[in-house]
């Protein structure tokens, strides 16, 4: 049985009396240990899909199964990091990481220890008393990562995690995230990332699901067969083969869409 199953999920909203399908009949499975990327144009329901997986939103139709059981609300086993970080500005780094642990009823001593461990993992131990406004974008996202991982979830959802960062910061953070994923000591080993950057998806993921726009449907499910670590392969023909192929699919779909 797959770890996570997205079954015929559909979500729509009504605008000017017209029903618009943000997500239409999306169906896929994610295995344990997998790094999955969902790619598509901006504003095309990718984030909505991720929010449904995380239990933040409910689909109109279909369901999300985790270990075979439907996901109805956010749980400790599936956590999330956000494009805009979602840190509480009035709490320090340590307090930000500790709060979800407190909510999930972990006792004071354990949560302090665990929060510190994950803050150390993302190399922010010197900033544990700092407030978010004192941190750079990259540091903020690392707090976001530490906060999510500290709950020791099975699945980590990432919503455009590098989009608010400058190119160089994003580059190094991508590597950090890959290291965390590859680290077998970590409980969290299944990652699902939404992105609009094809390069990023091909660089990071085992599998890339390509989503179309309005309605959001799966147009391709591409297995990325490039050996890891991929740092040396980013300029390779194979790498660009995948990128060009996915790009062509999205462009073609969009052209068809606009010529209708």
């Amino acid at each position, binding site marked *: 049985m797959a770890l996570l199953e997205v079954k015929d999920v559909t979500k729509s909203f009504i605008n000017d009396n017209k029903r618009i399908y943000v997500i239409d009949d999306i169906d896929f499975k994610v295995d344990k240990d997998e790094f999955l990327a969902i790619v598509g144009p901006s504003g095309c329901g990718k984030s909505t899909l991720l*929010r449904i997986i995380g239990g933040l939103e409910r689909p109109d139709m279909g369901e999300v199964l985790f270990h075979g059981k439907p996901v109805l609300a956010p749980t400790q086993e599936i956590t*999330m990091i*956000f494009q*805009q970080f979602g*840190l*509480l500005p*009035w709490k320090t780094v340590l307090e930000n990481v500790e*709060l*979800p642990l407190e909510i999930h009823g972990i006792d004071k001593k354990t949560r302090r220890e665990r929060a510190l461990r994950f803050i150390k993992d993302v190399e922010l131990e010197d900033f544990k008393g700092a407030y978010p*406004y004192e941190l750079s974008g990259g540091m903020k996202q690392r707090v976001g990562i530490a906060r999510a991982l500290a709950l020791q979830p099975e699945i980590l959802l990432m919503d455009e995690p590098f989009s608010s960062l400058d190119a160089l910061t994003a580059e190094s953070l991508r590597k950090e995230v890959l290291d965390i994923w590859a680290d077998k000591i970590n409980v969290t080993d299944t990652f699902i990332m939404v992105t609009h950057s094809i390069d990023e998806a091909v660089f990071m993921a085992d599998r890339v699901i390509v989503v179309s726009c309005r309605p959001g449907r799966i147009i391709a499910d591409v297995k990325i067969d490039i050996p890891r670590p991929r740092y040396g392969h980013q300029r390779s023909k194979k790498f660009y083969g995948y990128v060009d192929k996915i790009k062509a699919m999205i462009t073609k779909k969009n052209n068809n869409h606009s010529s209708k």
Partner: protein
Amino acid sequence: MKKSFKRYLVSFFIGLVFLIVLYIAIMNNVKNPEVKFLPYYTFRTLLRITVTLVVSVVFGVSFGILVSMSKKASMIITPTFNIMQSIPILGYFPAVIILFISFFPGILGMELASVFLLFTSMVWAIFFGVVGAIKSIPLNIIDAAKAFNIKGFKFITNIIIPAIIPALISGSILAWCDGWFFMIAAESITYAGETHNLPGLGSFLAKSAYANDTNLAILILVLITAIVLFINHFTWHRLMEKVSSTGYMPLFRLGMFDLKNEKKVVRRNFKLHFKFRQKVLSESKYRGYSLKQKIIAVAIVVLIFLVVLYTIYKGMLDLRIIKKSLFVPEAANIPIFTFFTLSRLTIAYMISLGFAIFMGVLAAEHKKFATFFYPIYDIGQAIPILALFPILFVYLSKIFGGTLGLEITGIVMLVMDMIWYMFLNVVAAVKSIPEETREVSKIFGFKGIKRIRHIILPAILPALITGSLLSWGTGWNTIIFSEYMPQQGGDLHVNGLGYLLSIEGYKKGNTIMLVFILFIISTIIILMEKFIWDKLLSKTKKYELEA
């Protein structure tokens, strides 16, 4: 100890010493037997306003949170509060006094009535500010809270409370200043033809002014202004500076005192003050309530008034009494009195409008000019303008005689009151004209009238309209207060709704008539909002510049 904290302490003590010297000077040089109570009066007034502020904060925060967490509550409460805040506070004061005194006879009832009056002037800025602040919590924070299961009580303590603190401080400053504004009316309570003074600075000022002791009245006014300024600078400004400089800087934990650049603080607070006012205004006014909501809200307000009337008339409220109370000889004057009052407001408004536009253009053309006004704003905010009324009257009646003097005093008061909002809004708007827009006008050679017409006026138009709305709102309070002047040798009045309200409410205790006049005034206010300001504002939405 931090250097900035030392500097804070030093200036704090200099301010304190200045205040003490002022007290001693007044107490030793004024030959009024009551002057020795000055510190006691100050204490009572401070206590009164502080208690009211605390009550307002508790009320504003709890209802603000309730409204934000429950859609159903919001459907009913928000439009109801909106109507209630449109009713001029000083209008329903007599009814409140009667109500409280009937439950708590004597001084306690009056003290409570006074706190209640202050409360109704203070609570709205806090309530609507809190609602606005909760609404503008960034979506990513709400999402994160959801994703990590932060909900219920934990959501309130971890997300909502910290997020509303800046708004709470801004709202408290507005409320605090409003409290001082109304204090002069709230401490001098006339009931059944008799005036009772609650011990306090406001009543002392009123008493001395009405007894023609202008010098003492002015001294008290100066003292009040100094106290308000002192408290503004040493508490509110500091708090605001701390929560505003980075959006959410946690209070108290970081060095909270830095007087290095007081001018900068005043300037920034000025801007925040206006951003906050706009937010409160847009939260309370332009929400687009549905017809059903409006009907429910009106019904609730009417019900409240009916309950109040019923209590005052001790259950004797029947058609006969209503008829008897409404068909008094004065009732025939209502149409013409409405006209007089509206004329006064219009004249004052026109003067304020002209002045505000003139100043706005001037400020836009000369950047330094605008900067020059920050200190005026700072001090002006601290002067309770209502308190000027009796003082001004003493002078003007000497020149123009009793009734004409009162007429002129009223209009001068109105202008001073209305111009404040108009002008400050305009300055704030001028300040936010983007440099790019200015440069466009330079590059394409807009000069003189053309520049004013095509660049400056459109840029300040939305601010003028918001300013107008605010200034009419406060104008109604001032006019109710200033059409009637109790005097030792026979009371003076000018004809108008405010006079009628004072006579029926304070003198005769005809509460039904009072509520009826209040109903007329509220209807005028709401109709004007609906058919003038809303229309104008939606037309000028396109002009609004992104600041």
